[in-house]
């Protein structure tokens, strides 16, 4: 279980600040829920707190279950290294058996023929497939997705099936600014309203609320740029 109790968070040093107060949410290991926010920057703010990257400004976060990183984030990859080397890093970090984990991920991502190529020499579709495969190959109590599709059309179906399979025995959280994936996988949703989070058992009602919020929240150029940059620079060094 992961629980937010009266959490408040806000962005800093931004032209158009985003803030949330009174966020109360609970994620259990067998939930299939969506976290819907009006903009990517507000979603990033909440995900940062959910993944323990940032402490909340107020309130508390109680963690009783393991949660994945926002899949398919590829921000920590070394782009000058191969798929195998990056998979090895994740295997080390999550204490997986490298002899079985790495071939499994490589096969799942369908990058066998370019497994030893540098990431920056490979097509971005291969990198996104790899990022998704890495996340779903690890055991977590709760899987956190920001996107459930990767690669070409035929890959998407395969990955969607795998995500659905994961949801049978683990918790599933889909964090998004639209309800497309949420409608496929989730049966309830939290809408992150600046005034507080609202839980909906009916996804259509949640999406309606989100639509109203989105209209009220103008997207800034900064916001768009920030995320475009993140997508294009998958493997920035961290020091």
């Amino acid at each position, binding site marked *: 279980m992961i629980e937010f109790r009266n959490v408040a968070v806000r962005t*800093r040093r931004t032209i158009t600040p985003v803030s949330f107060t009174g966020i109360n949410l609970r994620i259990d290991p067998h939930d299939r829920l969506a976290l819907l926010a009006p903009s990517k920057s507000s979603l990033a703010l909440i995900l940062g707190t959910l*993944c323990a990257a*940032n*402490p909340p400004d107020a309130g508390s976060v109680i963690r009783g279950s393991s949660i*994945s*990183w926002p899949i398919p984030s590829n921000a920590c990859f070394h782009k000058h*290294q191969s798929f195998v080397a990056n998979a090895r890093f994740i295997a080390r*970090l999550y*204490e997986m058996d490298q002899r079985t984990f790495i071939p499994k991920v490589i096969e799942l991502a369908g990058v066998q023929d370019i497994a030893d190529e540098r990431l920056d020499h490979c097509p971005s579709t291969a990198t996104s497939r790899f990022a998704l495969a890495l996340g779903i190959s690890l055991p977590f109590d709760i899987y956190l997705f920001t996107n459930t599709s990767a690669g070409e059309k035929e890959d998407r179906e395969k990955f969607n099936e795998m995500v659905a399979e994961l949801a049978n025995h683990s918790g599933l959280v889909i964090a998004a600014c639209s309800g497309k994936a949420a409608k496929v996988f989730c049966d309830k949703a939290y809408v992150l309203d600046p005034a507080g989070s609202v839980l909906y058992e009916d996804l259509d009602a949640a999406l309606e609320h989100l639509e109203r919020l989105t209209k009220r929240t103008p997207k800034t150029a900064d916001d768009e740029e920030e995320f475009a940059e993140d997508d294009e620079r998958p493997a920035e060094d961290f020091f």
Partner: protein
Amino acid sequence: MSQLIRTQFNVLKALTIHNLQGQMSSYKYGFAWLILEPLFFIVGFRLARKFFGGLASPAGMTPLMFYILGVFPIYLCFAGIRTFTIPGSRSKLLTFPRVTELDITLAAILASFAIYFLLFWIVAVGVSHYENAWPPQNILEIMLALIASLILGTAVGLFFSGLVRVFPPMKQFVGYLNFGIRMASGMFFVITMIPISAWPYLTWNPVLHITEMTRDAWFESYVSPIASPTFVAECALGLLLLGLLVERYMRRIPKT
């Protein structure tokens, strides 16, 4: 409990290797530059001293080993201090819920230690053979001095990580501190080259004790009148506790 410790160890190992693999990755032959940097320093000092004159090497010490034993401990200390930016940064590795700021900081420190410790022995063994200064008198003391230097730097880095988050211009002060350490910690001198009247002031600096310890431990002919392992241990422990307390406190404060 043992499982948790093993997990912590594995996380640190993974992050350290990740850090090593990423160092200077934007440059061609990036890792080579990392190794060459301290070597350039040593050769540069030696040449400067040769061409511009000045003080001769202290009695009983060979010229290149004199610099090597001064440069590496200070480099290790700087490697620790440099991590002051990490706890306040928004590292992308923090999206992994099992990774904390302290893990990333420790991984950076361990990576620097791995590089400079190995490099020290490669260079020191080669140069000391060339200058007939092999073997060292007390290897254990040298290793402990190098480790103490890293711990001191780490402690100061952790302490400043909190101050910089509260008061960002403090970054400038870290630059001045580095300059002060470089000048006053025995990179270019041993204490016997300094007037005795200045000793009571200079000996407050634990890094000077460390460079004195390394030279004392390497050369049989040099006995440092001031090197005090107890003082270094006390400073390292005290500063480390202070640094960890600051890091622990600042962890709950949102980053700017």
